[in-house]
């Protein structure tokens, strides 16, 4: 018994193998202006000076309501694979005259309202960031697309992610926007950044007749 120490094994045989799986996520980040890449307001009547010109003529009670609506809109889309923020602003602190380089026009004579026409929607008008679960866009200057804001110098964060479970990442169908420009309408009295509340006809000194120009830059960044 002591000499014969017998051990017996019996077992089921299994087998294993391994497959490595890799995921390569490339960054996609693109802004495309599809319409209204160049906006020019032409004041050629007293009515224009009195009431201003707006793409949102009814809301603005601006001059030339029939022809104005579609003339001063900018449509753009954002395609991003990650959460993003759009920063904007003018290159200069004021409009500069073309014929009279020393003449300037305050940039807050121009304002705009932004509208989301894509699948992504803005947070509620009076709400802070990240309150509404389904809302993925947040905008401080426009009070979440509810108010008119005056043009500001670069850099100002115009649209950013609402920090909810629904990222503002998406394609052009998700992130499609319209900017309704206006000039001399003295809107946005209750906005964070209101437009010049004095209309062009009442300003003192009166603006020198000229063609005033400024570039508005947009910068799209991944968050």
């Amino acid at each position: 018994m002591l000499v014969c120490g017998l051990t017996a094994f019996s077992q089921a045989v299994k087998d294993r193998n391994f497959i490595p799986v890799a995921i390569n996520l490339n960054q996609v980040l693109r802004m495309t202006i599809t319409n209204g890449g160049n906006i020019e307001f032409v004041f050629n009547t007293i009515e224009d000076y009195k009431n201003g010109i707006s793409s949102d003529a009814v809301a603005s009670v601006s001059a030339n309501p029939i022809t104005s609506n579609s003339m001063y809109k900018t449509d753009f889309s954002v395609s991003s694979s990650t959460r993003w923020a759009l920063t904007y602003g003018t290159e200069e602190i004021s409009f500069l005259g073309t014929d009279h380089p020393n003449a300037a026009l305050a940039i807050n004579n121009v304002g705009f309202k932004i509208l989301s026409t894509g699948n992504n929607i803005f947070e509620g008008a009076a709400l802070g960031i990240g309150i509404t679960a389904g809302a993925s866009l947040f905008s401080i200057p426009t009070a979440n697309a509810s108010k008119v804001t005056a043009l500001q110098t670069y850099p100002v964060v115009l649209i950013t992610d609402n920090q909810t479970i629904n990222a503002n990442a998406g394609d052009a169908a998700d992130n499609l926007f319209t900017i309704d420009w206006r000039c001399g309408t003295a809107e946005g009295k209750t906005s964070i950044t209101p437009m010049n509340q004095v209309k062009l006809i009442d300003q003192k000194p009166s603006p020198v007749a000229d063609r005033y120009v400024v570039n508005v830059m947009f910068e799209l960044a991944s968050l």
Partner: protein
Amino acid sequence: MLISLFITILEFQTMIHSFQRLLKLWIFLALMLINVPNCLAQEWNSARLSILYGSNIPFNFSSLAKIKNGIEITTGTHIGVSMADSAKVGHTLEGFILNFRSFNGQANIKGDVYTLPLNRIQVKAENILGLGSGFTYGYKDLTTGWVPLFTYSVASPSPWTNLDWSNHQLNLSFQCGIPVSRGGNGSLMGEGPDYYNVEIEFELMPTGPGF
């Protein structure tokens, strides 16, 4: 004289007894020290999982459409199944089950900076040769625990026929970043750009009475 002889005989007998006791002790010690490892091993079956094609699966999300809709690799990996019964009493091989999980309990899909949940990857096993009577569970989420993908069984009284890799093959399909609306666990929209990877472990396990 006789007394002296008697005493001598007694001493000689005592010496013999002492020698016998010593000999027994030596034998006992020798038996205690000698180790004879006798092992009998018997295996109830043999099993082998052979990767024939697609030993490395890359998902390349190079456009917004792919990130939004996900990627499905229908012809991902071909595996051959070899399995034989050793006819041991008390064990009857009737089939197998193919399981999968993340290797070594890896809890997420790791990138250099970011991570993704494991369930962004789903795997499906289907017959492509010789295992048509098997059952596929369809696309299943990758997890840290074993999840069945495919079962094959030859129920009694049908005789078991050994499987070999050249005539019994499965195809593994992989999908990643499929939206919830299409049966996935969410797209990769909004996830950080990175190079993520995970190793997937597959297990071929015999089934039948006694296993």
